[in-house]
């Protein structure tokens, strides 16, 4: 089949359709995923095609959805759960952390939890509270879970199918402000398909390694383009998998560049950037020319829409951090040289 141009939202939708078609044990659960097709229309048309027995609108209760999914997994199903927005995942936190994540360990491998939890996440859409959060670090800190995030339609399609096929539970973070980003999508898995754990170098460079994932990969690429006008060569890595992290790929890059900038929308303190900085410092200590820099959301609750530009990392803040690791004039040295 030839690649087709799809939005990321459709790319995930076609991934779900394929999973439903390929495996009768795949079932979708969530709020408003049926007739409405989800508030982002990711599941559009799926209930019509596969019936309400495979694509189930559930009562409005996230713990209920996840707990029910655990029971379905016990029975041999592969539930794919939609959490309507990032900020609504917390009522299900106990079921995810204490049950989904631990059941395989608890039962010495007897019971698998092939549950995929789809979470439209992140900001930049001018929404009200609880609709723009980046809670990934809560889950990457939870042993037993796998966590991925997609940054483009092809990965979105491939990763959702890999996530559903995985016998481990997977948190699947969908960068909602990129749902309408278009790109080629090839539905066939080829030999060149990356494993779900692998990071990808999305732009090669020599001076600085810039690590991003999800919504900020596009921003990172923009920053790299802007920097190249300034003669700075940035290597951009899209992590794709947030747990585990493909540190090998990052390490190889940092060994060459000697400089690392990490970016995510989530709050900085205890965010994934801390783990990346700590792990890469550990692995590349004598190759680092400067301390890894983090460009992240600030340590405040996600702010009201008119302030989100002062919370979210953007091109300028990324370039400022690049200047910092390169020892150039930057906001911390004082802007004037």
């Amino acid at each position, binding site marked *: 089949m030839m690649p087709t141009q799809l939005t990321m939202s459709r790319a995930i939708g076609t991934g779900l359709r394929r999973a439903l078609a390929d495996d009768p044990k795949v079932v979708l659960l969530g709020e408003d995923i049926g007739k409405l097709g989800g508030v982002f229309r990711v599941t559009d048309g799926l209930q019509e095609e596969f019936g309400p027995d495979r694509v189930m609108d559930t*009562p409005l209760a996230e713990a209920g959805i996840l707990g029910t999914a655990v029971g379905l997994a016990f029975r041999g199903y592969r539930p794919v759960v939609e959490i309507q927005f990032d900020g609504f995942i917390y009522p299900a936190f106990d079921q995810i952390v204490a049950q989904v994540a631990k059941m395989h360990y608890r039962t010495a491998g007897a019971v698998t939890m092939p549950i995929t939890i789809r979470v439209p996440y992140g900001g930049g859409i001018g929404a009200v509270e609880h609709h723009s959060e980046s809670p990934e670090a809560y889950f990457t800190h939870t042993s037993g879970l796998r966590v991925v995030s997609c940054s483009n339609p092809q990965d979105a399609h491939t990763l959702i199918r890999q996530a559903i096929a995985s016998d481990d539970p997977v948190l699947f973070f969908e960068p909602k402000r990129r749902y309408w980003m278009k790109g080629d999508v090839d539905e066939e898995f080829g030999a060149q398909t990356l494993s779900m754990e692998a990071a990808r170098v999305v732009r090669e460079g020599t001076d600085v390694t810039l690590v991003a994932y999800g919504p900020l990969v596009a921003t990172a690429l923009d920053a790299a383009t802007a920097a190249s006008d300034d003669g700075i060569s940035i290597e951009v890595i899209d992590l794709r998998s947030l747990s585990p992290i493909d540190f090998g790929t990052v390490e190889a890059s940092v060994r060459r560049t000697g400089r690392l900038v990490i970016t995510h929308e989530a709050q900085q303190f205890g965010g994934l950037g801390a783990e990346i900085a700590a792990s890469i410092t550990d692995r590349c200590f004598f190759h680092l020319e400067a301390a890894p820099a983090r460009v992240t959301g600030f340590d405040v609750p996600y702010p*009201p829409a008119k302030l989100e530009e002062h919370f979210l990392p953007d091109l300028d803040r990324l370039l*400022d951090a690049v200047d910092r690791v390169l020892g150039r004039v930057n*906001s911390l040295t004082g802007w004037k040289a």
Partner: protein
Amino acid sequence: MLRATVVDHTLANHAAEDEPKGTGDELVQLLTPHGERVSNRLFDPWIADVSPEQLLGLYEDLVVVRRIDTEATALQRQGELGLWPPLLGQEAAQVGSARSLRSDDFVFSSYRENAVAYCRGVELVDLVRVWRGTASSGWNPYDVGMATPAVIIGAQTLHATGYAIGCAKDGVDSVAVAYFGDGATSQGDTNEAMVFAASFHAPVIFFCQNNQWAISEPVTLQSGLPLAARAPGFGIPSLRVDGNDVLAVMAAMRCALDRARTGGGPTFIEAVTYRMGPHTTSDDPSRYADPAEREKWAAKDPIARMEAYLEGLGLLTDEAKASVASTADDIARRFRAGCLSLQDPAPLTVFDNVYSTPHSGLERQKSQYAAYLAGFEGGA
């Protein structure tokens, strides 16, 4: 088939323990959709003292809150608000309940209770701060006796319960009211709130607006029984009331309030109504809702029936109607002007009020970001 729960309308007469029990899930209604006043031995007394002026006041409230709602939807369509959750069709449920409260009562609501907020005395401009994105809440809860809305479905039911426990501890007869929707009845929090309210005999009212929808999901997905049937099993008496009948809602609410104030504990009220508009301005009900059902409910409009009733009583002249309409237009104009006057917050306020006392980590981030921003001002 099996019918196992009884919604208890004798509650209206909660002093009289020897009353015969209600038989089922019928609605309390005092005004028919055509505006005829039907008498109800149990509930009539609760609104017997409502004067003609007060009746007209309720009518004006209904008209005004609908007008504000319409204006807000227009503002959203014009790009002035990011989002708006219309209350069209739910005016009577909100006005009838909110107008029953005292100023020392305290409301914990969801996002759709803009008419409740209006009745509590929230400033017009404060209704839109959140939806325009200039603030994460509109008002100081203590100024109006109403918390800023909870977006997490069901969370506020527990807050109301805790507040009510506090009222009881303080020995005052203030009451806490939790407003929530039909969808919210499925959340663990809402059910735990009933457990705690019953266990501590808290003076709290669970006011559920059953508008038949949770976004695209019909109420039948949440419950096969009337929602009011849920509470008795927790030891909380409940009522079903015609939510499009402002008088019935007021009677039910006053009854429940009196019960709470006099040590009777919690009550659950299901106000049966209909969401005539979309879930929010982002929603497209044509994907899931049956227009015929909406038509059926249009015939039960809360304003039309109050209008007919007041006209029948000779209280509402054409002149009075026109005056109410112009008051509403006036309010809508002020509302719009207030909205448009809202300024974007200053960048560094993003760091304010995370903590009530200085926090070393955040102070550092703030000063670093201030230095960063200063570069733009001084430089480029």
